[in-house]
């Protein structure tokens, strides 16, 4: 983790989207700017979209410059800001290595996990824009209300449905059948996909890729018997048919799930069933 912070130099220009830019905050500890060749650390400027509902009615952009190391991720830089410059900066995080799904946010215009975005890969020469994910109500700074997202997830019956008696040993499943749905078991419910989907942004009614991915996980599990019900749910007009194969979801997924492919497989399963 970087510990030193360089003074602020961001200019008060008009930010993208027209929001006013706040006067930059003075950093707590001032240190020389520019590369320090000894330890490979460097300065990065974060341009963060702030929203503090108890203070301001609207969102605004604010810039912070912090010192970072070669292996630092955006999450580390956010922590530096929170811990050393402005404690009110609010974001979710837990595991810090891309496994819990807490910190999906829009980084330089694309959805990513802050803990998986290495600063050195983000072109630190330019300010890095950081915004909350789109399409869900912003609660504070980078925190959005996740309830609508989880509501859609719950609607697709994301649990194994079986009939008959539970066997005393395990249900058998061949490695091939197990592999059939492996990709979609990786989902960490981070919402990077759903909140990258232009169809979801429109009215938030679309089930969204994450819900479909989790339905896929069970529809293609050879042990499951609830596939027909799930297909029925997703056959809704807000279901899979709203997907326009835009692929933002696939590009955004931090787990590398082929999200669009899964959606297409669900669509095809519905067509096979209907004809």
């Amino acid at each position, binding site marked *: 983790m970087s510990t030193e912070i360089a003074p602020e130099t961001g200019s008060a220009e008009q930010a993208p989207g027209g929001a006013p830019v706040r006067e930059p905050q003075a950093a707590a500890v001032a240190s020389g700017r520019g590369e320090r060749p000894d330890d490979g650390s460097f300065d990065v400027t974060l341009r963060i979209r702030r929203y503090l509902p108890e203070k301001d009615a609207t*969102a605004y952009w604010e810039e912070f410059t912090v010192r970072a190391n070669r292996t630092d991720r955006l999450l580390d830089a956010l922590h530096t800001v929170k811990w050393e410059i402005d404690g009110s900066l609010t974001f979710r995080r837990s595991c810090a290595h891309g496994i819990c799904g807490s910190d999906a946010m829009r980084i330089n*215009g694309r959805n990513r996990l802050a803990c998986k975005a290495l600063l050195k890969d983000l072109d630190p020469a330019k300010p890095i824009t950081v915004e909350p994910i789109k399409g869900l109500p*912003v609660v504070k700074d980078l925190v959005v209300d996740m309830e609508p997202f989880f509501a859609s997830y719950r609607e697709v019956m994301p649990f194994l449905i079986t009939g008959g008696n539970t066997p005393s040993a395990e249900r058998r499943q061949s490695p091939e059948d197990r592999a059939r749905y492996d990709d979609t078991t990786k989902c960490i419910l981070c919402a990077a996909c759903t909140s990258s989907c*232009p169809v979801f942004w429109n009215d938030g009614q679309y089930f969204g890729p994450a819900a479909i991915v989790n339905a896929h996980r069970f529809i293609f599990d050879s042990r499951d018997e609830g596939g027909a019900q799930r297909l029925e749910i997703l056959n809704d007009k807000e279901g899979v048919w709203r997907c326009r194969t835009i692929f933002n979801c696939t590009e955004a997924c931090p787990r590398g799930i082929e999200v*669009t492919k899964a959606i297409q497989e669900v669509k095809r399963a519905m067509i096979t069933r209907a004809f």
Partner: protein
Amino acid sequence: MPEAPAGTLYRGREGMWSWLAHRVTGFAIFFFLLVHVLDTALVRVSPEAYNAVIGTYKNPVMGLGEAGLVAAVVYHAFNGIRITLIDFWSKGTRYQRVMLWIVIGLFVVTMAGFLPRHLGNVFGGH
């Protein structure tokens, strides 16, 4: 929450831009089609009426518009095939990007074949 000023534009990639173009072209073609059917319907009124309206189309501005329309149709058509392949071909999603470049290639080739001829007709002095 009050309406906050909009954030930055989402930086989608090929998939998003191709979709946007598909949507815009489809929408544009639809409105052209409405007009096109109406003007063609004039043949039912009288040959003079039809020719009069069609005659007003025969100027360079409309000719360029026509070229734009053809471009829209050509893109929409090829990309429509790409979408259909993404939908029905099990490897389609993996090759969507490649297929978009093919669409663009075909588009360029088609337009390269069409444009000189068409613009020749438009500007070629008749």
